[in-house]
């Protein structure tokens, strides 16, 4: 511990703590422009410079470690003059026109810093050299005139996301932010995660959708989780006048630590489907608007008459409450089958194994964040469950190795140390072979390489990387539709045990694991002999899956949006979408989350849980076990907490 005095206040901090953080502990804010708590300190903007007794020149508080008995002053005339100088330099470098900028008036850290120093004008005028505006990206606009060259975006793109798209070209006064080697952002390797936009302190990187829709102080913030995939990243939903303005990553969330992907941040902004606003009943082959009472009685009647000859299909985007209610209804009427909307073989294999083995075999996502060897099998986390790919990619500069086993090309082709193309039906055999090689139970590496059509040196490299790694992380998922998924999973778990590694399977939607733990899994037979009830929520079903319902004689659909499925239905109920309802969800690694509603739904549109409750009440279905009790009873691939 070292003792440090700042502005007369003394405290003790751990050795290595920077002066900036020591000051924060004391409640003293030192202004910065290039610093961010989640990024390594850069020391470029020089706004944080303070007086340190005994040292001749001003010192950067963001990088200087507190030394024992250091005495520091952050509020002297010299420090304020220094800050004004930096600001005057920045204002003269590019074109900082506050009047037309959407972060002006409170959301711009540059402007706020200038106001804090009482600046009323630019002491040194700019050159009036125009800088370009890059509007090539579908979500992000890069306004170079407003850039202060703080490099927070570059560091975020590298350290937090691992994509390394953003960088700087040239040096000195010609320094400039570029994507890749100078491509327009929209044509670059950018994966649209938007982390750069979230960290940018000025209006230089902005997103098209939320620009000019309100300053932070005018927006309402709801802390909740993203329901875009099974990871369940913590997010902040920003709304105004019951309108979605922006979604941001929650820096304090444990699972993702602030990063989110394009699916979570931007896809909700471009939702184009039309909402269902009223129940509808088919009359003479045409759907007509109906009251809730009429539609519920019609549905109740049909269900009662089809007892034993109906099946239910539930979206794994529904909350635990909704899923449980749905199951109660289906069970009460002897459903022929209850299925999820996830027909991927890998997901089924994971849940089947959980049931049959009775023990958990997966790890928590936190445990795979600092691995030094990542093995990706049957999954492309650069497309789905993207935040998992961030955790892996950002470890590469610190020496982590990446191996992928896939039956075709994935987004990891450029990042992986070794990309092995193995036909999906041979993957389980191949993984067994690798395990034997690592355990040194086999020395036929030549033969193995030949039989799987691999370069000998690649295979040797793979074995070497796995054997010498201290922390192996295996990610297995559902991008590949295996014929023998169970066998692949078995071989993976055996390999994991051999390597003493950690396994995380990506599963499917947000409540994929949740549905399974109350007994709802995918069944081949989704359609009932007389009736199919589909609790779709706001999910967008693939065309292939939707086709399965062509055969059903009668369908009752609970859905937020109009689709070909609802157009062909017999009774349709409108339900709230994910922004409008709360509920509990169990993510891929067994955390139970409670989501919060951020918007109010249109009138007379209820949550899936409420709508199904109305149906259950009309059918006088008795309450069974609570979902929490069911979760406790059911084996799961990962421990649920």
């Amino acid at each position: 511990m070292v003792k440090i005095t700042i502005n007369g206040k003394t405290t003790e901090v751990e050795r290595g703590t920077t002066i900036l953080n020591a000051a924060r502990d004391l409640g003293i804010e030192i202004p910065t422009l290039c610093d961010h708590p989640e990024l390594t300190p850069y020391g470029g903007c020089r706004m944080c410079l303070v007086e340190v007794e005994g040292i001749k020149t001003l010192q950067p508080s963001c990088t200087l470690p507190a030394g024992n008995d250091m005495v520091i002053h952050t509020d002297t005339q010299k420090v304020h003059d220094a800050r004004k100088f930096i600001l005057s330099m920045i204002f003269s470098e590019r074109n900082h026109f506050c009047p037309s900028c959407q972060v002006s008036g409170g959301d711009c850290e540059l402007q706020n810093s200038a106001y804090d120093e009482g600046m009323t004008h630019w002491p040194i005028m700019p050159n009036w050299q125009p800088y370009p505006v890059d509007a090539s990206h579908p979500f992000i606009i890069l306004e170079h005139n407003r850039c202060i060259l703080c490099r927070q975006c570059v560091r975020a793109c590298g350290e937090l996301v691992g994509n390394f798209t953003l960088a700087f070209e040239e040096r000195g006064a010609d320094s400039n932010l570029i994507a890749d080697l100078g491509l327009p952002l929209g044509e670059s390797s950018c994966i649209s995660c938007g982390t750069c936009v979230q960290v940018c302190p000025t209006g230089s990187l902005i997103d098209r959708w939320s620009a000019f829709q309100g300053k932070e102080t005018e927006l309402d913030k709801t802390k909740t989780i993203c329901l875009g995939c099974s990871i369940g990243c913590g997010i902040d939903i920003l709304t105004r006048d019951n309108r979605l303005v922006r979604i941001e990553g929650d820096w304090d969330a444990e699972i993702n630590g602030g990063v989110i992907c394009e699916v979570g941040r931007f896809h909700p902004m471009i939702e184009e489907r039309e909402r269902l606003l009223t129940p509808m009943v088919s009359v003479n082959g045409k759907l007509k608007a109906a009251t809730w009472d009429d539609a519920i009685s019609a549905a109740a009647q049909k269900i009662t008459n089809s007892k034993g000859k109906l099946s239910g299909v539930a979206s794994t985007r529904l909350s635990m409450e909704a899923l449980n209610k749905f199951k109660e209804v289906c069970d009460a009427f002897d459903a022929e089958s209850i299925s999820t909307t996830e027909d991927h073989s890998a997901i089924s294999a994971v849940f089947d194994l959980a049931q049959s083995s009775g023990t958990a075999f997966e790890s928590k996502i936190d445990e795979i964040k600092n691995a030094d060897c990542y093995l990706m099998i049957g999954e492309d986390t650069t497309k789905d469950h993207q935040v998992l790919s961030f955790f892996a990619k950002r470890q590469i500069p610190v020496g982590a190795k990446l191996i992928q086993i896939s039956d075709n090309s994935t987004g990891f082709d450029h990042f992986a140390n070794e990309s092995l193309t193995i036909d999906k039906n041979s993957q389980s055999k191949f993984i067994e072979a690798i395990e034997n090689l690592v355990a040194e139970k086999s020395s036929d590496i030549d033969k193995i390489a030949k039989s799987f059509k691999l370069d000998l040196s690649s295979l040797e490299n793979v074995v070497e990387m796995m054997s010498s790694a201290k922390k192996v992380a295996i990610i297995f998922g559902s991008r590949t539709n295996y014929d023998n998924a169970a066998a692949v999973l078995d071989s993976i778990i055996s390999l994991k045990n051999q390597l003493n590694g950690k396994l995380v399977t990506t599963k499917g939607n947000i409540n994929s694991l949740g549905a399974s733990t109350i007994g709802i899994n995918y069944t081949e037979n989704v359609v009932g002999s007389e009736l199919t009830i589909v609790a779709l929520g706001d999910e967008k079903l693939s065309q292939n899956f939707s086709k399965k319902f062509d055969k059903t004689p009668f369908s009752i659909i609970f859905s937020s949006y109009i689709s070909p499925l609802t157009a062909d239905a017999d009774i349709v109920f409108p339900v709230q979408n994910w922004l409008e309802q709360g509920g509990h969800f169990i993510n891929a690694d067994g955390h139970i989350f409670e989501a919060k509603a951020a918007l109010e739904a249109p009138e007379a549109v209820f949550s899936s849980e409420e709508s199904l409750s109305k149906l259950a009440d009309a059918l006088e279905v008795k309450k069974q076990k609570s979902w929490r009790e069911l979760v406790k009873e059911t084996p799961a691939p990962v421990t649920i907490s």
Partner: protein
Amino acid sequence: MAKPTVASNWLAGCAGCHMSLLDIDERIVKLVELVDLRATPITDFKVPDEKGVTVGILEGGINNSHNEHVAKQMRARSKILVALGDCAVFGGIPAMRNFFTLEESLKRAYVDTPSTDESGKIPSSPELAKPTLVRAVHEVVKVDVFVPGCPPDADIIFYVLAELAQGRMPKLENNNLMWN
């Protein structure tokens, strides 16, 4: 003691800052109790007294040689010079013309406008002021008080004038400075 005298003028601006001044509404009565308003573009006298005034106010930036002349004259005749509004403080909207050459701007204004036929010509009468780079007032003459805003809030303008009227330099900070 005689009341402080005030004069104002406008240069390359839109007059909006003077309109914002008028938004002090009935407080103008209080103001003229404190000061002697000598010359403004919106009153009878337009040119500041030769013997000088206490406070000179300039709206708008410097866009041509005539603006330079007016600014220099106001500076010479004022003890304290106030730059009122963004255009005077840094150049404002008219300064966007600085990203283009003078020729491009003049051509766009007089020849390429949609409503001009082929006879469009850039005026070149020797009586016209020579256009220059658009500049803030303080790039040409010394400015004592900067009042940013587009336009600055009427309350701020009143505060600035009231302070100057009572012999104090206005201090623009915190809520008085943040324009939103």
